[in-house]
């Protein structure tokens, strides 16, 4: 991301015109009114600028990183909760094992696998995944919304994760 390297305001403008309206839409679907969605999407984009140096383009797609920023801001702002997260600098943290360079997928390969996996989900799985991401619904809230047993909601979410793993060619364990 050019923003990270050069702190280039022109590059930032491009990111802004793509993501600010999408973040605003995302925040509205999570229950924000228009005014607070507007304010918070501006805040999210300001955070993109300020934290750009922490973004590692070899590890995650820009969309994934920006999604995580917007998600965390929305938890802080609307739920008045903290989002507990691990800290790679923590002495107790167990680091990732080394991946052989020839087996590691590039970020764009990962994104295209993920995109195909989402497109290939059966409707009933895609529905619960979307409610989980877009509407900030817990498992029980999804169950009430769709008038389904809680166990069905959980198993659909599990199946969708299994599909995602399978599309990466992994064995399923859980």
């Amino acid at each position, binding site marked *: 991301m050019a923003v990270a390297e050069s702190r280039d305001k022109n590059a930032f403008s491009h990111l802004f015109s793509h993501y600010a309206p999408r973040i605003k839409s995302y925040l509205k679907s999570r229950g924000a009114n228009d005014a607070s969605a507007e304010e918070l999407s501006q805040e999210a984009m300001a955070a993109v600028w300020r934290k750009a140096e922490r973004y590692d383009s070899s590890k995650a797609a820009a969309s994934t990183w920006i*999604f995580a920023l917007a998600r965390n801001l929305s938890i802080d702002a609307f739920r008045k909760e903290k989002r*507990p997260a691990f800290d790679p600098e923590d002495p107790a943290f167990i680091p990732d094992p080394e991946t052989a360079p020839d087996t590691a997928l590039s970020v764009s390969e990962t994104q295209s696998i993920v995109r195909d996996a989402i497109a290939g989900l059966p409707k009933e799985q895609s529905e619960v995944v979307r409610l989980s991401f877009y509407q900030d619904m817990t498992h029980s809230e999804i169950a009430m919304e769709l008038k389904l047993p809680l166990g069905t909601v959980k198993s659909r979410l599990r199946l969708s994760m299994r599909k995602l793993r399978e599309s990466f060619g992994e064995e399923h364990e859980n």
Partner: protein
Amino acid sequence: MTAHHHPSDDILLSYAAGSLDEPTSILIATHLALCPACREQVSKAESVGGELLNDVKPVAIQDGALDVVLARLDEGERGQINVPAPAAVPHDNDLNLPRPLTDYIDGSTKSLPWRWLGPSVHYAPIASHTKGPKVGLLRIAPGTRVPMHGHSGNELTMVLAGGYTDGTGNYTRGDVEAADDGLVHQPIADAGEECVCLVVTEGVLQPTGLIARLVQPFLRI
């Protein structure tokens, strides 16, 4: 050594989606600190979030919003904005507890309000200001048999020190066991070291034995 028993995929997905309650997220994020395999799953699920963000129908942003943000950034750059928060490590982290759990414990685990729950079993609530399920630490003396019990709601347990064994397997540091109202079990703490667990409970424990039923009032977490 890394964990052998992991949280289920539906919980990891909800954590990535940002729709998991804070108490359960404390346990999940603490597990993630110790489990590279589950971090990998969460990061895949976050890629789903990124794709879904690209997919939403954009909503018009205010005219001039970009200039407002750029002006704010110029202001911010002159001020002090990018100071990272110092790591909140308890002064006596004898159990080598990972973050984010330590952020919820002031000082040492020894100074928590430990309550007697039963012979050789103590419980201390943490993060009690949050909504949703209850979170706390459980200390079980080495070799202790916890009374046979069922569960009236979902319960997640993660081992932080020592270990225990029940009908479903052996659990040591980093391992997570999920119990729902179908599971009746009798955990036995491993010999040697005190077993310390992080527990997130929705319902109350339901002892099944006669003596255990008599002590149920004490078992209420």
